[in-house]
């Protein structure tokens, strides 16, 4: 499953997409994110599965544009910590 967490507002699209078929729930993104955006647990959109997967925490889903901003400077943007930490390339940002 591609789980798109985030929102679209008047200023643009802000989505973090997690490929739950790739994700193995290792939690490396959770420790890598400096702002507590990522979490790992049962897949709430697949109630019949027992596997744990990464997700964007409930509290952050409606404000990732701002929470993620420090990791996204306008120039000389380094790799995002969450994406760099993921060994399975399961995370994408839309902006």
């Amino acid at each position, binding site marked *: *499953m*591609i789980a*798109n967490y985030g929102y*679209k507002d008047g200023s643009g699209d802000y989505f973090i997409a997690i490929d739950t078929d790739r994700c193995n729930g290792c939690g490396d993104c959770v420790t890598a994110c400096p702002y507590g955006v990522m979490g790992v647990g049962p897949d*709430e*959109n*697949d109630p*019949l599965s027992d596997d744990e997967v990464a997700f964007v925490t409930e509290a952050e889903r409606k404000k990732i544009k701002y929470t993620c901003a420090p990791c996204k400077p306008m120039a000389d943007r380094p790799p995002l910590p969450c994406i760099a930490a993921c060994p399975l390339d399961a995370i994408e940002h*839309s902006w």
Partner: protein
Amino acid sequence: MADKVELWRWTESRWTNPDMDWKGKLITSGIDVGSVSSQAVILADGELYAYSNMRTGSNSPDSAMNAINWAMEDTGLKLDDITYTVGTGYGRVNVPFAQKPITEIACHARGANAIYGNTVRTVLDMGGQDCKAIHCDERGKVTNFLMNDKCAAGTGRGMEVFADLLGVSINEVGDLSLNVEEEPDPVSSTCVVYAKTEATGLLREGWPTNKVLAAYCSAMAHRIITLLERIGVEEDFAITGGIAKNVGVVQRLEKEVGIKILRTEYDTQLAGALGGALFAKVLHEKGK
């Protein structure tokens, strides 16, 4: 003074299958407590036995109780007869008698699969307060999803605001909006508040009601298309939630996407609760 008519008020309903006896069968239920409406669906051995669809009050646990009580009315069922209940929707953790909460994304995909058949690959849930685009497989399992709940444009609540402003019953908005000679330009599509301001201006210019409604239904269709573009549309394409009953939006969406939207005899607002009740059956059988 005459009683004020609340034009946004859509019709609440309940139904029981007259040909079915629930006794001796496995009873499961799904309760969808949304921001605007609450539904209860009761299944007997996995088949639709009864449902109710009503407005959500200010208190989620009460709304859940009211919905299930209305669905059980005159059936002889008691809450204790229901083996497993799944709660879904915004108030899913506030369903006091539910064994498990499940997201409305999972439940709507499962419910649409049951209502429209297993060929459905794209489900657009247009609810009271948010809009979700979901891809699912032939079992109704979610394969891709996207949700927008930071904006009221493209929601049922936005439509209620317009019905109220224009003095038109919410049930007639769709038909009236199609009754125009020429399709007007859509109003502002990013904000209900500004769209309403714009509509007031159009009325002042002398636009007839149906033309303003056409401009709003068209704006809503545009708004949803920008959301759908992110995940794409695969056939078959179905809509759930209250806006699916508004032909003005559905037909304009169909025209813009260029893909036929499936129609159903079911109440489209039931999809979430129905999906929940189907999950309840599986979860009970799995002993979860």
